[in-house]
């Protein structure tokens, strides 16, 4: 599907008007509603949007008609002094057949596009798509680019206009991967691998989140989608493929590096060539991210040191141990983490 939308059909126009009218507050105000499902930015999201528009059209129509009928009936036949005793009508076959068939017809109008969309969106991803493996963890997302040999966390980078095929897995419990802007949810389920694919159609940064209750910090399991131009994406890939930055061993960051191995961070975090831990996010280029810890903290020295001092403070239940670090240790570690661009 192409990004440009044609709404020639009157039905679609009406539907669009209804959606956009009824949901005026959504009115493309991505700025105000960054996680909105009503501002599609990919073929998948558009496919859903078209279906939603038709659904909304019918549903609103039925709603107006039936509620109208209800209200009119109640008003018109309200008991007034002197109203006659009603006739005892027991039914009317023709009428009853009619109002069985009418919904059945509407149902077909909805069912057909539904099934078509199901098969279209769940088809195999086109060959040559960018493959990314998503792994849900309590309570952060991991992204692996097997072709590019990149592992990162919480922030997914994709190029605009190229199909991205995600395969989705979990490391612990069920989560649900959801980036509203590019399409619907897919659960990540232990012992299963799920799939979803989309082609993002405009550049930008969009929030997403975990949508299946997954424990105490379910509310803090966010992520960000970066839709980059091909050029920016290539640059990002190239940067991620670099070995981690080697800080000067006398600098604060350098001290932090030593400490990283000393206090036990290495047990949980991978930094290429330095440590193999896999419990927490890969930190090789953590400094290049805009947010950390499931996008709950902006990536800023102040927040990083808060995080290191007490991971559970803002993110209850976070599975990173509170190592009881002293302020100077935190300062050094923060400097090191921030240096890992």
């Amino acid at each position, binding site marked *: 599907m192409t990004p440009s939308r044609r709404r020639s059909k009157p039905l679609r126009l009406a539907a669009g008007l209804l959606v956009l009218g009824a949901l005026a507050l959504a009115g493309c105000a991505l700025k105000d509603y960054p996680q909105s499902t009503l501002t599609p930015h990919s073929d998948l999201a558009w496919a859903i949007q078209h279906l939603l528009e038709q659904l909304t059209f019918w549903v609103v129509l039925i709603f107006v008609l039936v509620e109208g009928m209800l209200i009119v009936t109640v008003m018109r*036949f309200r008991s007034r002094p002197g109203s006659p005793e009603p006739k*005892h009508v027991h039914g009317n076959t023709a009428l009853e057949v009619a109002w*069985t068939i009418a919904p059945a017809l509407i149902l077909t109008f909805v069912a057909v596009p*539904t099934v078509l969309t199901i098969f279209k969106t769940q088809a195999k991803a086109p060959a040559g798509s960018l493959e990314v493996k998503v792994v849900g963890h309590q309570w952060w997302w991991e992204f692996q680019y097997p072709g590019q040999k990149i592992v990162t966390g919480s922030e997914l980078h994709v190029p605009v206009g190229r199909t991205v095929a995600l395969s989705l897995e979990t490391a612990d419990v069920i989560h649900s991967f959801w980036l509203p802007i590019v399409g619907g949810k897919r659960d990540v389920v232990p012992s299963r691998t799920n799939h979803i694919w989309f082609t993002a159609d405009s550049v930008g940064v969009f929030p997403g989140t975990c949508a299946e209750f997954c424990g105490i910090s379910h*509310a803090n399991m966010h992520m960000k989608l970066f839709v980059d131009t091909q050029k920016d994406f290539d640059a990002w890939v190239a940067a991620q493929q670099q070995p981690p930055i080697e800080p000067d061993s006398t600098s604060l960051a350098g001290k932090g590096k030593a400490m990283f191995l000393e206090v036990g961070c290495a047990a949980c975090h991978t930094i290429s060539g330095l440590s193999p831990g896999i419990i927490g996010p890969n930190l090789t280029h953590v400094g290049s991210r805009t947010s950390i810890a499931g996008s709950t903290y902006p990536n800023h020295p102040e927040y990083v040191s808060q995080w290191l001092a007490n991971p559970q403070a803002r993110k209850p239940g976070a599975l990173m141990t509170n190592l009881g670090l002293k302020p100077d240790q935190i300062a050094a570690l923060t400097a090191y983490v921030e240096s890992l661009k």
Partner: protein
Amino acid sequence: MTTTTAPVAAPAATHEAGSPSGLWSWLTTVDHKRIGVLYGVTAFIFFLIGGIEATLMRIQLAKPENTFVSPDVFNQLFTMHGTTMIFLAIMPLSASFFNFLVPLMIGARDVAFPRLNAFSYWVYLFGALFINASFFLGGAPNTGWFGYSNLTSSQFSPGHGVDFWAVGLQILGIASLAAGFNFIITIVNMRAPGMKLMRMPVFVWMTLVTSFLIILAFPVITVALVFLLFDRLTGTNFFQPAMGADPVLWQHLFWLFGHPEVYILILPAMGIVSEVLPTFSRKPLFGYPVVVYSGIFIGFMGWGVWSHHMFAVGLGPIADSFFALSTMLIAIPTGVKIFNWIATMWGGRVELKTAMLFAVGFISMFIMGGLSGFMHASPPADLQQTDTYFVVAHIHYVLFGGSMMGIFAGLYYWFPKMTGRMLDERLGKAHFWLTLIGMNVTFFPMHFVGLLGMPRRVYTYAPNMGFDAMNMMSTIGVFGIILALLFFIANVLKSRASGKPAGNDPWGGSTLEWAISSPPPPHNFGTIPTVHSLDPLWAKDGAEITRTAGQVRGPIHMPPGSIWPLVAALGMTMLMSGMVFGWYVGIPGLVIMLTGLYSWSFEPCD
């Protein structure tokens, strides 16, 4: 209460003689009307508790990054809110109506198994107390009302919350099953002469369908919970992915139960509304057979749609399409019911008494909830909606706007029959309008906040997401609902203190219960009426039925009261709670249960 050999006397005298009071008489009662009242009062209290839990959640969500309750407490709140509302409030409120009304409507003296009926109530009460006790014993369950595995495994949910939940639901399941069997047999076997199946009031039909759903759906959740408990208590592998298990099996078993369950919650309300509308339109139900068949069809179809709760799981396009189509199909019989209800009012003389207002409110709000359900039924669209507040909006329009409004319609309609006193119409109307406004202010914004990306079951949200205003609105709305409920409570208290006496038939209803005094005597009908038509009291012989129904001709045997159902229920609850508390509760429970059952079995019946 022992054998009531009522003398051939005025009904009033029998009434006095046959209604002993005092605590003991309530503990030993096997009278379906008293059990109905017990169910109703208990369930309403749990409804308030569930509502208070909701209110606490709403306060927490009023503004972003609020810290009114801790995340863990929030998770306990929504889990217990859902569990309480569904299993401890709506289902038993419906059961309260089944109990009170079904024997009256079919012209019976009691249910088929009065002591089983008492047993069912006591099991429900003890199960409800048990599951709520968890709040004080180390934390309530916190994994949501559908407790998806493998989050519920002992690895990810150590502590006893989930055990309380699983054992509690098992106990409540026994209560529901007992009631389900009882009502099936009562309806099939205890009808008055001439009360053919197609002359039964729609409410009785819906009770029958609901009871079948109960006895067929609860075994499935029982098995799922057995697996869960085995996993947690003995280390089996039913939901252990590491051992090759698939946690999705839980979802299938749960929703195989769970979807029929939502029709268990709505069909009784549809039955109630089908009784209220004709009475206040002064016109028989339009298309009675079709309404009945639609109800049966809904109950039947309810078995083939469960995976619409699992569209995000990735079942594949064929399964998704199948379940989408079967789900959409349910819109047809539901629509038929709605059109028939409207047609019932069309050409009638619509009296907007409070009961009628709630019935019309039910239709109106249920359409809303049904249509959002219809939107969920389209899997691609649902992928954007599932697990967001859009679903929360759907469930509250069908459950609060539907089931609860229906139940209030029934309460206003039958309260005079149950207590002998009228409710105040002015307070009632205030209750209705405040409920209608309050619920829409609370739940309507949830559609939008959901479509705008707010997931459900989050204890907090960020300030820059655009969720603030609508959440605040929802929270404000709850206070409207609270106010409405306070009006209702005041109304009930006022009626108890100084309500107008109701007389036999304050509304001019068509069904048999209106032929006898309010509240009815323990034996219900002095003379069991013979039914010749669908609306017996509106038929030619209606006056005759009313005249004779109260007359007692000859001795009437009523089953004596018994304490053993309570004892057996207590023992059973203790036995099962032993899974959480240990053998020193379980073993005495077993002994008490066996004592109860044994004494019950060999107790002389009359």
